[in-house]
């Protein structure tokens, strides 16, 4: 099996987790799946760069985080308003089954600065250790810790009245 096949087959069971991470980063269902699509295309194109002894999930999560940052930058250069007919998707997702508190939390997460949001997504949503997140983000563990603490304080404020 060549590396391309190994990556392709290894990504199949990771798709649900990749979609969860993308949802936490990008917010909307359709935007998150667009991100996943970009990530899959990049991962397949760069399959030769994957070292089989490295964890495929961390490798592809790093691609996802970088792709998300790329899209943020691209969006920063040209602000597009959302086409009204495409807006309903996240709301349909959130409001159908989930408590208002979780919708509020998701909106609070979406409002966090990118540095904070990615730490929350990797550690609190995806369950990476501080060390794993630090390696993936290429920052010291202390930076992960302090960003996470500040992000947590912001999110907690949104839930404060209920706890």
């Amino acid at each position, binding site marked *: 099996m060549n590396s391309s096949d190994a990556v392709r087959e290894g990504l*199949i069971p990771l798709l649900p987790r990749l979609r969860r991470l993308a949802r936490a980063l990008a917010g909307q269902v359709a935007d998150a799946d667009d991100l996943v699509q970009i990530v899959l295309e990049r991962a397949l194109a760069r399959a030769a760069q994957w070292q089989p002894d490295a964890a495929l999930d961390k490798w592809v999560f790093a691609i996802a985080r970088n792709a998300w940052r790329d899209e943020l930058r691209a969006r920063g250069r040209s602000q597009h308003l959302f086409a009204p007919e495409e807006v309903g998707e996240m709301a349909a997702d959130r409001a159908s089954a989930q408590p208002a508190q979780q919708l509020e939390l998701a909106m609070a997460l979406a409002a966090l600065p990118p540095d904070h949001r990615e730490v929350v997504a990797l550690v609190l949503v995806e369950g990476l250790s501080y060390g794993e997140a630090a390696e993936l983000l290429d920052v010291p563990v202390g930076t992960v810790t302090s960003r996470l603490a500040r992000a947590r304080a912001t999110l907690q404020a949104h839930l404060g009245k209920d706890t």
Partner: protein
Amino acid sequence: MNPIDDDTLQAYVDGELDAASAARIDAALAHDDVLARRVRQARVVRAQLRAAFDPVLDEPVPVRLSALLQPPSAQSTTPATSPVTLAGGHGATHRRTTHRRWFVPGAALAASVALLAVAFWWWQPGGDLVRMQGGQSFAAGALTHALDKALASEPDAHAAVAIGLSFRSNDGRICRTFVLRTPPARAGLACHESAGWALPVLSAVTAPEGGELRQAASALPPEVQAAVDARLRGNVFDARQERAARDAGWR
């Protein structure tokens, strides 16, 4: 005892403290109500985030994504234009050709709640055969009943739902094609999961002139056929396998 700072408390909640430090906080929690409250608040954030995002793990993966991971030979059967992908809403089909839009401002998000009603209204003509859950479409009512019970090997020419192929997809779920005979005639693919029969694709059927849609399999629109091709691993079930799968609850 030194006060416990936020970083330490957070590390405790996230399981990042060494055993000795964690034991120190465990001991302090017993008699420090303020500390206990801070721990509880930090845990709530984590738990609520998991509750908000973990359901994504149980959603069916949209065909346009799983198809990217098919072996190259299988990808050729996937049409260049995406099929009607219900999972992402009707906007998703056009998205590939447009620039990718990201990060809805909070105001747009709030405004979007108003469109919910439209989304639900949009499905009503289906006669309650489709329900939305977690942003995905699932079979409901008579469609669920037919997918649960009906066998293609025992066709009922008068039933509103005709079952076509049944097979185990490459992600391990059992999927079945179906045709809704009642106007507006539609055909789709349903895949069984814990939440019910997910509908990754559902599309309109043009009835053959003067004919009825009795042959479910032969009436499959190309986008449904493509969804089948993208998932099919091995053979479709024969009559015995189909019955056995039904008796096993389609697991």
